[in-house]
């Protein structure tokens, strides 16, 4: 092996070290995308980002008392947990800049007590930043005793900065049953059902 090849080998090792560092950095970059994504959505309002923290009431600012925006309410239960969850009224007319309260009704249809977390989302995405909640059942976990039905209020206002072209805003809530930690455990029975005979046969 010539002197030349020896040198090549050594610089080959240096290049390899640099490339390995690049791989490690990109592994970190993948994780850095998580907060970056949050910040990006918060700043731009992309992805219908909705703050899950209480905001102060409407500021003392001028607003058009004649402007009307329709707010639609949607409630969904995640997965197939035994819950009933619905808005009390499915829509209301609001004036941006004024404070309103709407009610949602959740019912735990099981005899056991349980815990839920309700997550909000707003459509269209551009309205997310302008939909402000001063009080909401979604800020904290909600505990339900067996077979309990509860009416839960959300107090909100729409920032008058909402784009003129937006005439309808949808507030959607998804209820997650989180009694077993964050996600339902892997269900062996369900998996066996999947792996069993073709469901088409029946």
């Amino acid at each position, binding site marked *: 092996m010539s002197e030349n090849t020896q040198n090549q080998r050594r610089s*080959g090792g240096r*290049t390899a070290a640099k490339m390995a560092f690049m791989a490690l950095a990109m*592994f970190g*970059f993948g994780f850095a995308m998580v907060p970056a*994504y949050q910040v990006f959505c918060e700043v731009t309002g*992309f992805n219908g980002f909705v703050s899950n923290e209480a905001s102060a009431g409407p500021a003392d600012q001028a607003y058009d008392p004649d402007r009307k925006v329709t707010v639609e309410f949607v409630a969904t239960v995640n997965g197939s947990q035994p819950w009933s969850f619905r808005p009390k009224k499915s829509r209301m007319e609001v004036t941006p800049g004024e404070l309103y309260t709407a009610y949602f009704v959740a019912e735990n249809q099981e005899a056991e007590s349980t815990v839920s977390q309700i997550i909000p989302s707003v459509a269209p995405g551009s309205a997310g930043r302008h939909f402000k909640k001063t009080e909401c059942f979604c800020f904290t976990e909600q505990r339900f005793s067996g077979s309990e039905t509860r009416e839960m209020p959300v107090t909100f206002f729409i920032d008058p900065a909402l784009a003129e072209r937006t005439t309808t805003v949808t507030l959607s809530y998804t209820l997650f049953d989180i009694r077993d930690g964050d*996600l339902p455990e892997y269900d062996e029975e369900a998996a066996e059902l999947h*792996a069993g005979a073709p469901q*088409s046969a029946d």
Partner: protein
Amino acid sequence: MTATTHDTHDDHHHGPPAGFFKRWLFTTNHKDLGVLYMLFGLLMFFVGGAMAMVIRAELFQPGLNLVDPHFFNQMTTMHALVMIFGGVMPAFTGLANWLIPVQIGAPDMALPRVNNWAFWLLPAGFVLLLATLFMPGGAPAGGWTMYPPLVLQLGDAFPFLIFAVHILGISSIMGSINIVATILNMRAPGMTLMKMPLFVWAWLITAFLIVAVMPVLAGAVTMLLTDQYFGTSFFNAAGGGDPVMFQHIFWFFGHPEVYILILPAFGIVSAIIPTFARKPLFGYSSMVYATASIAFLSFIVWGHHMFTVGMPLAGQLFFMYATMLVAVPTGVKIFNWMATMWQGSMTFETPMLFSIAFVLLFTIGGLSGVMLALAPVDLQYHDTYFVVAHFHYVLVTGAVFSIMAAVYFWLPKWTGHMYDEKLGKWHFWLSTISVNVLFFPQHFLGLAGMPRRIPDYALQFAEFNMISSIGGFVFGLTQLLFVYIIIKCVRGGQKATSEVWEGARGLEWTLPSPAPYHTFETPPVVK
């Protein structure tokens, strides 16, 4: 230093070490490892192909006929994982291992032992992945994209899937680091960067892509793992996470990945077309810049996989325009290949036939790609067979055809024998006709609204599905002919000259055929 000199000198005369295991298990020789990579790719091509046959057999007629829907979903998911990580990527890495040192005049890869390790991680990763087929709950069935929350419902296969992806990722990252280190440090004197064959250039850029995005995929699947077992909420909405974020991270890897699967193909046809057109490649430097531009653009177009997630208008516009920009450097390449053939004295041996078919059929895939890039119409095409047709045109008639072209082109150099040209032509025509019968009707199915990854379909799709399945079976069977041709060529045949092809240019054609076990121990002089 004397000892080292002596050892190498010995090797040179004695060739590979005796004994099957010593030769193949412990080998650090780039040619041996290239062969191992390619054989592994071929094996996985048939494993993934068998899965495709199951898919096409189930879709031969409407109704649920042969397999359980859950098993069908396992087949679509595993077919993709096996073909991408087991078929195309190892085949390209094998070609890189065999060819890059002999094309740049280096005695071996820069890191031979890393090379051995990178290869042997592959079978380990695939044992983990393929073992899931025999587990309770079955193999991954939620699509190769591993979207949560569906992938989290996998059962026993889940951690195996994650660790298989980790291992395959580490393997390809190590292979790529080695390729970069080789190309940047091991070139013969006079082999400047802009004199390198385009296959070497394409692989240099591909290797950078792999090192940049494979770790991102590793991060994404690690987050899935901690979401499932360690109570984190990266993608879990109940805990404040966002499942759509997985798609962003995944496709930040996924889009460069599809260029990882095609850039080496560009390098291969850029070697073959000039040879059989007997003209130098038209626009060498524009080819280099076009490849680099495509690689750069691949990092800013990932959103076009997600037009339907509810992306705001600004996002849709950005990703749509950025994606359409990709057509510009790609068009430059297609133009250059055509200009190379223009007024050349062409002959149509099997590698050339596969390369011409590549240019034509890859362009069809590219054009359906431009259609899919249009955000407003993508809402209709998304998750239909139109997408399936698109990516099979770019991956089968693109990547796979280029690999076949490369095998026919360099096989005489590897084995010292010419392959059977008549059988090669049969293989080409049967493959080309059947692959179009297989995938072309899928465009129509998709435009008519047939969703992908579904084991059953509405009756109006019956004829096109049957035609497509027949094409699929013929294409699958034809590949057995490919294996026969390779075996026949290894065993014997007309002796190959060192130049092999009349118009062949490049360092590898100065070596005798078959190339000796050790080559370019004394660097060649490149003028």
